[in-house]
Each structure stands twice: as structure tokens, then as C-alpha cells.
């Protein structure tokens, strides 16, 4: 596992999801415009850096691709992913998938979006697990305070 590549991918993904989610929901620009604007800015900056040779960096070309892929994940509505914490988690999962998935489907349009969908689905799964754990914890507190389980008290 290439640690440097993993770190760059994770940092880029988190930056992408945070900026897109902010433009989408806080600035209320809508998912398509948010993803397109942020990706366009990063794409142009990377293209200029590559053309001028101002920044020599091994993974610079991949950064723009990872950024637009992660921005797809941040197109999620607030009903699906309602907090910055969850969207950051989705970004980290996207970075992991991008770094470690095989290369069979490279060059296929929509491959990035599929990985983004997987990362959002994983974030929704985490949310459900956290909600379940919280309800279990509250039930435990209630039984300690009341001396009886709520369902037995009825």
C-alpha cells in the first residue's frame, strides 16, 4: 500500500466533499452546479500547473480526477447525508476505494460515480449504526433509572 498516494487521495477527497457540500447546501447552488463549479476550478488550476510546470508532483494529474469523483458523493441531499462529519466519512471511503480498487474498469464513464455511490451508501450505513447504538444506549439508561425495562413497565 502506497502511503503517500493514500494520504493524497484521502486529503483530496475530503477537500472535494467539503467544498462541494458547502456550495451545494450552505450557498444553496444545487448539486449539479456545486459539483461542476468546484471541479472546474480544480481542473483548470491543475491544468495550468501542469502546463506551466510550476508544481512538480507525481500525483497531480490524478488529483483533479479524484476531486471530481469525490464531488459526486457530496451531491447527496441533506435528507441522505445531513452532517459534515458523515460527508467527510464518505470522502474518506471514496479515497480508499479510488486507491485500492482494481483497474479493470478504468476509462469507463461513470466509474467514479459508482465509487461515489458506494461511499455514500457506506456513510448511510454508518449513520444507521450510530443511530442504532444511540437508541440502545438510551434504552440502557432508561432501564437503570426506572429499575424496569420500558416495555415491561407497560
Amino acid at each position, binding site marked *: 500500500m502506497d502511503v503517500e498516494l493514500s494520504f493524497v487521495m484521502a486529503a483530496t477527497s475530503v477537500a472535494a466533499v467539503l467544498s462541494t457540500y458547502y456550495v451545494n447546501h450552505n450557498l444553496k447552488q*444545487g448539486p449539479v452546479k456545486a459539483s461542476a463549479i468546484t471541479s472546474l476550478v480544480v481542473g483548470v488550476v491543475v491544468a495550468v500547473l501542469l502546463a506551466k510546470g510550476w508544481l512538480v508532483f507525481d500525483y497531480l494529474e490524478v488529483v483533479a480526477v479524484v476531486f471530481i469523483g469525490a464531488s459526486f458523493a457530496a451531491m447527496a441531499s441533506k435528507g441522505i447525508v445531513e452532517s459534515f462529519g458523515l460527508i467527510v466519512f464518505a470522502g474518506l471511503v471514496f479515497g480508499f476505494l479510488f486507491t*485500492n480498487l482494481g483497474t479493470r474498469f478504468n476509462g469507463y*464513464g461513470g466509474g*467514479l460515480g459508482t465509487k461515489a*455511490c*458506494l461511499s455514500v*451508501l457506506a456513510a448511510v*450505513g454508518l449513520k444507521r449504526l450510530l443511530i442504532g447504538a444511540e437508541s440502545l444506549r438510551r434504552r440502557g439508561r432508561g432501564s437503570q433509572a426506572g429499575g424496569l425495562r420500558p416495555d415491561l413497565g407497560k
Partner: protein
Amino acid sequence: MTPYPARGWIYSFEERDGDEGDGQGFASSHPFWRRIVDFFFLVPVFWVNFIETHGHPLVSAGYGAILVLLLVGEIHVYRELRSTLRCQPFEVCLIRLAICLSGSVFGAVATYFANHTLGLGAVIAASLVGLLGACTPALLRHKNANLLPLLIYCGAFIGMSSMQVLDRLSAVAQAGLVAGFIFWLTQYVYEGFGGKLGTIAFGAVLLTTLLLGVVYL
């Protein structure tokens, strides 16, 4: 509650907006095997790559954790779906189908042209076309025009394909048609889910390349 009939042309699910039903709804109207099949259909990239990956133990552990989260998330999505599927009149379906097909074909062809012919690169081409698509509802004052940005951006993902996968504009347009049709069929499923458009685009590209005999899996 929507004025649409409970049983309509495309979908035959009995629940509508605001209709709580029996508390089970869509989840109870679909057998368990159907959910499993759909789950495996949703993540083809993940499975294919999972099988062929021989990496670090940490990577394998990460895969395992993500698989568990995916399964939990998938079950939650199906529970949420029960009130989103509803019926629409025939004319509305046709208008929305026309918008879906035209939007995705335009997005795919425009992005492919900007990407390969103009040489802008996949990221800048898709972003520009997406930005253009986001402006269309303001130009076309039709009540269904709010679908266009999504469809054009979905088509843009198809246009990001390399020339080894889709080697001519006609193939890109075909993939756009397939994507538009898939979007039309699934417009009330996974609403607001990040990555839905990309997954549709990927399925369309894969289907088109398989149909055209470009790849051999």
C-alpha cells in the same frame, strides 16, 4: 397527496405521498431475493475488483468494514423507498422520457466532443457541460425542465469515457440513450443519493460496450 391514480402506467405500487399504508409498503411488496439481486447489481465495480485484489491485510479489513456498512445502508434505503414510488399519467411519463433521452444524449456527446476533439480533458469537459446544464432550467421555462441538469450531468459522465471504451460519437450517443432510459425508469429510486447519476452512466456505458462487442469480460 398527489392527484395521480393509485395504479398507473409504469409503477403499480399502491402507496402515494403521505400515505402510510401498512407500515411496510415497498419493503414488504418486494421479496427478499429481489433486494439481494439489486444489491449485487448496484455494486458491480466493487465486487469485480474485490475478487481480483490481492493487497495489504489492512486493505482487506477496510473492504470488510465497507461491505458491512453497505449492507446496512442498503436495507435503510429500501425502507425509505416505500413512499417515494408513485404513479404518473401517461403524458407526463412520455414528456419526462423525452427530456431524459435528449438531456443525457446531449450531455454525453458534448462532453465527449470537448474531451477528445477539443482536448480539454475529462474533468474540465464534464464540469463545463455540467455548468451549462445547470443553467438550462432558467432558459427553458417548462415545469419538467428541472430534470435537465441532472440528465446532462449524467450524460457528461458518459462523455468522460476513454476512446478505448467508446471509440465513436454514435456509440456515445447510444450510451446516452441507454442512460436516459435507465434514469427514466429509476427516477424515484435513490433520490438525492450522491453517485446515483454516475452509477447509471456506468451501467449505460457497460451495457453499450457489451452490446457493441468492444469488451470481453
